[in-house]
């Protein structure tokens, strides 16, 4: 399975995401922001970083990159798409998922090992986990507070679209401790913490993050992803 990893100007975790994909047994393919070509990939990851320096708003400029056009089209058609951190912000700016990411409630960048519970395991990016499984992966962001209106929140909760939730003290002020959500169809996931930094316990706090990447590979092999 080929998984595209997009590099925007200012993207930082692209090599990490590619390493995670390869480590999980997939084949990472580099995609360039200015090239509207998906190179035949079966899924796409928008990695973390500060694309376009986070100018205007995080992700606001990247969503208009040439590569985003075919990505949006394919994702609306069911292609698995994972936005991590800055990638989550791009997904929100592109209205592929509801809500917005705002400044952390303590107003500074926070990097720490974060416990999460996986709340939905039926989807493309989380099928390797068990429901309610607690995992430990790095969280690192300055604008990671998930915000949405009450109706949207009720809808996300009601439809089981909250993929992962923070455990313990709220690290950034996200509503309902939301760490990650999915679209209605379940193929697009936005996730604030960084599974690509937790693929082995040598360089990360655990190997728990690998599950996101094996999930999409398994879904692909099972034929549930086209």
């Amino acid at each position, binding site marked *: 399975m080929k998984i595209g990893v997009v590099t925007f100007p200012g993207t930082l*975790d692209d090599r990490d995401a590619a390493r995670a994909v390869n480590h999980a047994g997939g084949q990472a393919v580099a995609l360039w922001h200015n090239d509207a070509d998906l190179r035949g990939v079966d899924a796409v990851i928008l990695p973390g970083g500060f694309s376009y*320096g986070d100018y205007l708003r995080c992700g606001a400029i990247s969503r208009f990159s040439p590569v985003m056009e075919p990505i949006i089209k394919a994702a609306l058609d069911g292609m698995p798409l994972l936005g991590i951190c800055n990638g989550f912000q791009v997904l929100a700016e592109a209205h592929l998922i509801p809500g917005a990411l705002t400044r952390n409630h*303590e107003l500074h960048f926070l*990097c720490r090992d974060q416990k999460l519970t996986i709340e939905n395991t039926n989807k493309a990016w989380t099928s390797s986990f068990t429901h309610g499984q607690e995992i430990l992966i790095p969280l690192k962001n300055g604008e990671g507070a998930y915000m949405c209106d009450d109706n949207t929140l009720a809808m996300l909760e009601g439809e089981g679209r909250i993929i992962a939730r923070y455990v313990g003290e709220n690290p950034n002020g996200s509503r309902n401790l939301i760490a990650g959500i999915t679209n209605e169809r379940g193929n697009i996931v936005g996730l604030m913490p960084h599974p690509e930094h937790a693929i082995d316990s040598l360089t990360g706090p655990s190997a728990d993050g690998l599950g996101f990447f094996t999930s999409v590979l398994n879904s692909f092999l099972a034929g549930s992803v086209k």
Partner: protein
Amino acid sequence: MSLDTVAKAQENPDASQPFAELGLKPDEYARIKEILGRRPTSSELAMYSVMWSEHCSYKSSKVHLKQFGEKAVKTDALLVGIGENAGVVDVGQGYAVTFKIESHNHPSFIEPYQGAATGVGGIVRDILTMGARPIAVMDPLRFGPADAADTRRVLPGIVAGVGGYGNCLGLPNIGGEVVFDETYLGNPLVNALCVGVMKHSDIKLAKAAGAGNLVVLYGAKTGGDGIGGVSVLASETFESKGPAKRPAVQVGDPFVEKVLIECSLEIFAEDLVVGIQDLGGAGLSCATSELASGGSGGMKVQLDKVPLRDPSLSPEEILMSESQERMCAIVEPSKIDRFLEICEKWDVTVTVIGEVTDGNHLEITWNDELIVDVPPRTVAHDGPVYNRPLAQPAYIDAVAKEVINVPLPTTAVEITSTVLKLAATPNLADKSWVTDQYDRYVQGNTIQSQPDDSGMVRIDEKTHLGVAVATDANANWSYLNPYEGAKLALAEAARNIATAGAKPLAVTNCLNFGSPEDPGVMWQFAESVRGLADGCLEMGLPVTGGNVSFYNQTGSVAILPTPVIGVLGVIDDVRTRTPMSFDRAGLDLYLLGETHSDLAGSEWAYLHNQRGGVAPVADLQREMRLIEFLVAGRTKKIFAAAHDLSQGGLAATLTEMVLRHNIGATVQLDNVGLMLLSETPGRVVVAIDPSQSAALTQEAPAQKIALTKIGVTGGDSLVINDAKISLTELRQAHTSTFKKLFG
């Protein structure tokens, strides 16, 4: 203002010039006239003023720094030595590593966020300029008292600046220091270290060789920020009165630098440059004169071609501007098209501003009029050299006579309160409030970061080769005895590499001192350099480069002498490193090294307002045996954990070890007060599986290393003799200090 040209300088030889306002002394100005055989043009004066500043020319330190060359060990590991942008060492498997530390002290006091941010940006460009991919940063920081009002202004801004810039570049921050002392109140220290890695064949140098080759400026446009940063800001003592110096601080844009890094690495990979130099202190003045004098001849530059952020800038200002995120490359004409193409791919502004020439002239024109015509070497390398008067300050003998008189705990209650007090004191308290604002995970190769003894990154995913870096300074010891203080800092940094099992390989330094015009400060400096040079020679470690920061002084109050020493080490397999602490019960704890009555300069003495006494004498032979033992013990898998003893002594080391994985320990100590609080150098606590005790007890004495069994791991408390401190209480003390102070 009309344009001052070379022709006008010849016509009006006696026009008065504002050399003093630019930081030049009358005799320096006279020397410039002598070199040129006429008065300098205003542009030439601008160039000489920044390049001959203390910050750029090392005019007060040169005569001392040459010891690093004279006393240097001969080693094949050193691929590029002092004088280039950063030194380069061979770490095996075809890899070369470059690392360097620099200060950005003065700007960070004036404008904490931007000062610290551009400090990171500058050192990263130095590393990039060598042809390396930057792979990690570290930041040793020093502040006034933790509860001082100005520290609350300065510290959060500096921490946010270090994080804001480094995080956005995608560089893991793998360590550093945060130390408080009242002498840093008006002069906080922001030192920034960067490590980069490349293949041997990729090393780049700052030289402009080959007549007809093009001079290319790429990166950010030039603005009016940081004008005179090195001269009017970094090379003068702060006074309480006087004009605001904020305009002399640069403003950084990390996004532009990130793109510049990737763009440059792509350019290097295709071998498109002959020479390269970043624009840091002294901006274009520095880059053009250093490239030209490092090459074969001269250079012609059309200054009006420089892309400007502010079109009203004068030629003098353009030459002095320290706008960030700019690089200057020398490119063969046949390769320029590809160079421009790569810049376009990354949306990087690029302009050909001149060409390399034969001869010995750096000629700069402005709209075809000649405004600079100088021998480039006279600007870049032939600056003034001062053998400044030095004299041992009177305090040295006075403090040596003082006897440290502090209470030493004996009862359980006293032991508990002492350990808790040290755990919570700002110099020893948990620094997560700071380090959690730095990304330590990006690039996916971080093996160790704060609070480990050293930072460690993997440089090859297949072979598991890695490097470790530690920085240390003990200003309290340097104050009592600058010669020994520098050696002790070197030993500590090397030990911090070795506890993980890495082998120390090379040294960099950032020497932070008060005003060189004070003979006492100059003596502190000279003694520190002598100590470091002697220490490096004895330990067989080359000094690969460094930085001097003088004038860290407000009025007559100088900072404590603060030579920050960085040591780089190599480890052949990062998977086998010895961790800093134990994660299970049932291990035996041993103390390696002897403990003497070394309370002078200790944290415990500092907490009792005692600054005097006699600093320990560095025993580097013993340190080297200890290092060898730690490295060998790692390969023989003797150690389950190893952690250095430094500030706060055994009390601090045990606190950090038990809290790391929340596994307690029970220790039994004779002469408990001194054992907990003395800071005798050359000591390490190790944890071993009991099955390794034979190996340990045989090999330590063979290496003439004192060995004391002090206890075992396990439980939910730190038990010291009759005192039982719950880990919950200890953690509360250790982790609440910074939150309380800085929110």
